[in-house]
């Protein structure tokens, strides 16, 4: 066979048809892939917060009379600011309720990927 014949035969060779299920497989692995509930960074943040809380809890409850000391420290700091538990209770309750209402009104921004799903 000559060079020319080889060239012509090569250029005339049709591409094989891809298997019938290939398209569906690719789409299933890409655009139809189910989204994770959390993104990787969200998992890290939540995991770190939980770990810190567990660690603090362990510290508080593993020390001798830790809860007593914590309560005493809290009371002392309240005294320092002139807010006796008895007289300032109403103020603290009010502050707590308003904070809860404020938090409930916050709408956190949706992650961009999930927002564009539909």
């Amino acid at each position, binding site marked *: *066979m*000559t*060079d020319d014949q*080889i*060239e012509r*035969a*090569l*250029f*005339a*060779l*049709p*591409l*094989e*048809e*891809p*298997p019938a*299920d*290939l*398209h569906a*497989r*690719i*789409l299933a*692995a*890409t*655009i139809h892939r189910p989204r994770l509930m959390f993104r990787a960074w969200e998992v890290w943040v939540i995991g770190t917060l939980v770990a810190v809380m567990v660690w603090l809890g362990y510290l508080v409850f593993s020390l001798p009379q830790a809860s007593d000391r914590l309560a005493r420290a809290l009371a002392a700091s309240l005294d320092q600011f002139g807010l006796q538990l008895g007289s300032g209770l109403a103020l603290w309750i009010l502050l707590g309720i308003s904070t809860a209402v404020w938090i409930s009104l916050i709408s956190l921004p949706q992650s961009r*990927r999930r*927002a*564009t*799903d539909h």
Partner: protein
Amino acid sequence: MEVPALTDDALIAAAVAGRNEAFGTLVERYERAVYHLAFRTLRDTEEAKDAAQEAFFKAYRALRTFRPGAKFSTWIFTITYHACCDRLARRKRYSNDELPDRADPGAGPAELAERTDTAVRLRAAIDDLPEKYRAVVTLFHLQGRQYEEIAAVLDLPMGTVKTHLFRAKELLRKALSDVVAEQGTP
């Protein structure tokens, strides 16, 4: 009036903006060529399917990093070729006992008889080429890619691409002449 097809860049922009069907159109546009490159490189249908799926998955995940102005075809072929190279390297790491080379079982009598047809003989000859020549022939002759794009996909200098093409053609000519000579022998 026929609606002009969207360019690859427009489809990528739409896909990045969250329009999944735009990526579906890109898949439709390139799946055949991507599968073909994978199949010619790996010589195994199942592995070629896996490599093509992996290439599109990687492209989909990294779509935001795609450089505007670059060619999507070069990018997806590069990802595909790297996926194939990884698979070939993995295949080599296993012993023959653990993972038989399903890709090259050797020609049986039936297959030899089939090779009388030029196209079939040519395909068989391409399959028998060394991997580096196979990829170049696939991209240049079968998919009509330019030297520059092939050089970018295979990460080779353009001169090497041309040399590989020349040597591949020499090997093909020799292989096809041998088959003709065998058929002529009583």
